[in-house]
């Protein structure tokens, strides 16, 4: 049996991951994604496990080669959009991205900012990043877009001397703070252990 579920998580990667795993616990395996939804087919209850990773900072080649590598490791991967962009031929400037990914278009990682990775559940935690050094690097790619969103509102605020422009920046500031706490924690661990 197949079904499509309308659901949109925007940038809430953890909620999306939890929801996909709950679907698997109810016997639904992901078969595809659409802009606003997910396609499933029925499967053995809890057979699969999901994790969601941000790849919106990568170039087209970077994201594809990473996805291919994960497939070679025996996982199934699905690209998923984070934002809603129905336009064709649109270009988004991402100053936080790696070389080759700064100008995101439909040919690069625009609308493919997330990677949903599936493995057969084996009782061990599903972690793609396992060393402190690498978790730190991944956290930094996650915090960078938030720093930009937080800072960009200061431009009109300063130009117009109107603090109301800083209101939309508040959630991003909170996002940055959350990641900075996580980064500090990893750095503390790294002082003694790798």
């Amino acid at each position: 049996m197949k079904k499509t579920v309308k659901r949109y998580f925007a940038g809430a990667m953890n909620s999306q991951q939890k929801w996909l795993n709950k679907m698997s616990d109810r016997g639904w395996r992901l078969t595809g994604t659409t802009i606003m939804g997910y396609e499933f087919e029925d499967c053995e209850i809890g057979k699969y496990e999901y994790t969601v990773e941000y790849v919106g900072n990568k170039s087209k080649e970077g994201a594809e080669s990473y996805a291919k590598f994960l497939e070679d490791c025996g996982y199934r991967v699905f690209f998923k959009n984070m934002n809603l962009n129905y336009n064709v031929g649109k270009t988004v400037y991402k100053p936080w991205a790696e070389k080759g990914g700064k100008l995101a278009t439909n040919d690069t990682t625009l609308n493919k900012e997330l990677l949903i990775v599936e493995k057969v559940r084996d009782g061990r935690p599903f972690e793609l990043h396992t060393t402190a050094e690498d978790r730190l690097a991944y956290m930094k790619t996650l915090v960078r877009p938030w720093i930009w969103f937080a800072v960009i509102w200061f431009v009109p605020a300063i130009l117009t001397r109107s603090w109301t422009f800083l209101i939309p920046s508040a959630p991003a500031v909170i996002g940055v703070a959350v990641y900075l706490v996580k980064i500090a924690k990893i750095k503390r661990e790294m002082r003694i252990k790798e």
Partner: protein
Amino acid sequence: MRDAVAGGALTEVTFYILLSLFEPRHGYAVMQFIEAETAGRLTLGAGTLYGALKALEERGWIERHGNEHGRKKEFVITDAGRAAAQSELRRLRALTLTAEKIMGGAI
């Protein structure tokens, strides 16, 4: 790979990856090798392995092996990689020697 700059020490993961590539292996086989050799103590996430392989390739310590049309990408250690592994082995021997001198041979 930052640690390689500090005291010349490789991270444990880096050293194990180099050791696994004395024979050509693809990514998944590297993960299996490390898990088997450490009896499951060290498991490597695929994302971490991807980044490590990329960094080691850029440094010239490992390289692609064979043609890869439609196949999984395989890597193998280079001469520079062997030299790095060799000096890491010397470093670890010196370290265990000091440890045994102070703590005694018993584990």
